[in-house]
Structures are given as structure tokens and as C-alpha cells.
């Protein structure tokens, strides 16, 4: 399985340059926005680019012909998503440290941000990967679109639910801020990990019966 993860990382090669450029642009030059997206987007980009390369080259046939099981193929892809999540966090932390100590700029970086980065990437992976395996080469764009649409939808539903419990708008923000950050962060990570694991089981069920490379 480690060789499969290694493959996923090596295949991207030049694509890491895009990620580095993105990090430099939004981490050092344009730093108005939140650092959450600075960490989450590169991870999501790497996951999507890796899957895109696999579909473009019909490389699931290549992967399926290697001495690995289908279970290992799925587990490796999810493990790669975790590696990309860690890379996204590393980018955020690195940019924050550079801003704080080299450039003397303060951005209010916190552990909660890391929890949200984990939440966003794992939630995206949990939706995108089963759709990717299910739809295959015929529907990679559909899988990507569906994943993004579901994230937005989930965002609306979540804020709606929270709004109905705590009130809405500014009041919701105040209530959330009243939560201890560790509890809120823990909840976000716990839910996303749960979804991620569930998604892995669904992906395995899809891949187990699927013709690879179609």
C-alpha cells in the first residue's frame, strides 16, 4: 500500500509547482483572506489533479495490473488524501510562521484553523472519491462538480441547523465563539473523520465490483 501512496505522490511531479505558486501568492503576497483556504485548497487541488491524471492516462488499468488488491488501491487513495491534508496544514503553518517572524505580520492563526482545514479536505475527499470511483472516466467532472456542490449545500444546511439552534447571523457567530475552540475543532475533525471512514467503506464497495479503467 505504501508503494501506491508513493506512486500518487510521485505522479504529481510538476503539479507541485502550482501548489507552491498558490501558497506564495496567497500566503505572502495577497494575505487579506483566511489562512484556512490557503491550507485546504492545495490539498483538494492535489487530490483532484492526481485523480485527473489517473483517468487521463487510463492508469487504473495499470494500477489494477500491479500486485495489489482492490482494497489496497482504495486504502492507498484515502491515505494519500491524508498526506495531502497534512501538506495543506504544513503550507498554512509555514506561511503563518514566515508572515509572523520574517515579515512581522500577524494573522490570528489558531489550532481551530487546522481543524477546519482537516474538516474541509476530509469532507471534500469523502464526497469526491466515491463519486470518482463510481463515475470513472465518463464522469470525473461530474464527480468534482458534485463534491463541490455538496460541500456548498452542506455548508448551507449546517449554518441553517446551527442558526435554528443558536439564532442566526451575528448571534450565531457569538454563540460559536462562546464554544471552547478545542471543542468546536474536535467536533469538526470528529465529524469529518467519521464521514471520511464511511466514504472509504463506500468506495471499497464500489471498486470491489467495478471494472477498473472504465
Amino acid at each position, binding site marked *: 500500500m505504501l508503494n501506491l501512496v*508513493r506512486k500518487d505522490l510521485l505522479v504529481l511531479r510538476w503539479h507541485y509547482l502550482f501548489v507552491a505558486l498558490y501558497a506564495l501568492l496567497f500566503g505572502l503576497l495577497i494575505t487579506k483572506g483566511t489562512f484556512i483556504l490557503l491550507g485546504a485548497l492545495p490539498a483538494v487541488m492535489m487530490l483532484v489533479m492526481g485523480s485527473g491524471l489517473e483517468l487521463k*492516462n487510463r492508469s487504473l488499468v495499470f494500477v*489494477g495490473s500491479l500486485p*495489489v488488491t482492490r482494497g489496497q488501491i482504495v486504502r492507498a487513495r484515502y491515505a494519500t488524501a491524508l498526506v495531502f491534508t497534512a501538506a495543506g496544514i504544513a503550507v498554512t503553518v509555514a506561511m503563518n510562521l514566515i508572515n509572523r517572524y520574517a515579515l512581522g505580520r500577524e494573522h490570528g492563526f489558531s489550532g481551530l484553523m487546522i481543524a477546519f482545514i482537516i474538516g474541509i479536505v476530509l469532507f471534500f475527499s469523502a464526497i469526491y472519491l466515491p463519486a470518482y470511483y463510481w463515475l470513472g472516466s465518463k464522469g470525473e467532472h461530474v464527480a468534482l462538480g458534485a463534491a463541490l456542490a455538496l460541500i456548498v449545500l452542506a455548508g448551507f444546511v449546517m449554518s441553517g441547523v446551527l442558526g435554528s439552534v443558536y439564532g442566526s447571523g451575528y448571534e450565531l457567530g457569538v454563540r460559536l465563539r462562546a464554544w471552547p475552540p478545542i471543542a468546536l475543532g474536535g467536533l469538526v475533525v470528529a465529524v469529518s473523520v467519521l464521514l471520511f471512514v464511511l466514504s472509504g467503506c463506500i468506495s471499497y464497495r464500489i471498486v470491489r465490483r*467495478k471494472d477498473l479503467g472504465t
Partner: protein
Amino acid sequence: MNAIEVRGLVKKYSSFALGSLDLNVRQGYVTGLVGPNGAGKSTLIKLLMGLSAAGAGEIRIFGEQMPEQEAGIKARIGFVSEENTLYEHLSIDAMRSIYAPFYKRWDAQTFRDCLNRFELSPRSRIRSLSKGMKMKLSLAFALSGGAELLIMDEPTAGLDPVFRREMLEILSGLMLDENRTILFSTHITTDLDRIADYIVFLDRGTVVFNESKEDLFDRYALIKGDKKWLDRDVRQAFVGIRETGTGFEGLARDRGEAIRMFGDGAIIETPTLEDIMYFTVRGERHRAESRA
């Protein structure tokens, strides 16, 4: 001893069904999988490689069951696909660095030798290679992993005659190692005439025959003669017949019987594999139409 044993294998698609199929591939020989387009050759190979999931049946390779022991089995198989499935944006050397760690028996020297022999530079991008060169590269990867069984899906399709001959020579050379087994599919029957020991003929998802090439050529006979010979009994001795304005040409299923039947009255020749394939398919289609 069999390298591959298939029992009751079934795979159904909306417009095509393979099987139920029984098949043995003998260890230490070249077996050619032949049949018209859409006969099920690629489907069978995908099932053997675990790339497709079977609807029913059992596949054993080296005596071990697929897909239960697929990782161990596939470590002993070199696979060459009809289409390039390697990452096109990578160089050959970068692809090697991805591929090699999967195989405990990876032989770096064999890979270097293959690249030299095939005139491939490790620094070349895969996308810059011609179809023939990509096929050779796939073969280099398959051989360097220490494969005991080579499974190749249409390795000569789309190659020019020079490349095809070269590829067949390479495969012939591989068979100097008596433990190695090759199964390859093709619809170019002349490829099989050159190197195959056994022929598996697949049509409409079923095995029509699985025999040694010598037995096939001994058994079948190509008869050319006058149409006056073609009464009902004589027709039944043929697998398939093609009638022209003046005469007929047909494949007799029993050479001895054909000689007794026609004597000097017709031309009796040894058929090529293409003749056998053509008349078998033609005969099957004709009988199916008659039944309908």
C-alpha cells in the same frame, strides 16, 4: 501442468456475455487467444488480470485462486495492455521509479538491457514515444518484474509489419526460458502462425476450440472443388463453406474423412489459422441464421 485454469467463468454486459467458459493454458508454452472483434478476448484477459469482476466462475493461476490471492499471483505476471496505461507525462526513468518497488524480483539489469535493445532512452517522455515504442516499453516493464506468465492484450495491434515481426521475435526469444508462459490475444492470425504453440479460439464469448497448432493443422482441411460435390451429406462434413459462381471453398472438420470423400476430385490443402477462423465464424453465423 496448467498456468491458468478457468472454470464456468461468466461475465455479462448489457450487449455482450462471456461464457460460461472453461479453459486451460499450459505452462511453458505460447498460447494465442484469437477471435473476431468483439469475441470476448479483451474481456477474458481483464478477468484473468482481475481488472474486471466475474459474474460467476473460478480462475486459478499457478494453482492459486483469483481474486482471493491476486496480489501474490500478479507479482508473477507481466501484463501488456493494448492501450498505453503508463503515465504519459512522466519520463521512462520516472515511471520505472514508480513501477519497480512493486516487484520484489525487479531486475534493474534486465530493464536496462531491454531499454538498450529496444533503443529507448530512460530520459524520454512516454508521451513522445510512438505506439510501437510504448508497446516495447510495456514489455520491458513486464519482463523486468521477473514475470513467469506474460499476459498481453493485442500487443501487435496497430503496429507496422516491421515492429510486429520484431515483437514476435522478442516473444520467441523469451520462450527459451522453458518455465515462462505467454498468453496473448490477437486478431492477426499470422502472428500466431509464427509463434503460438496452442490456439484458443473465442467467438461470441465462448471457446470454439483450445488445441495445439499442430493438431489443428492436422485435423482440419481446406477443400476447393466443383459445386457439384455439395450435396446435403457433404455439406455436413464442413465447418463452413464459401460458394462462388463456379465452385466452392470450405473447411472440412476431419482431414481423413475429406480425403476419403473427395479423393482426387478436389484440391485438399492445409488451412491457415485465418482460414479456420473465417470458416468457423462463417459457419456458426450461417447455422444461427438457419435456426432463426
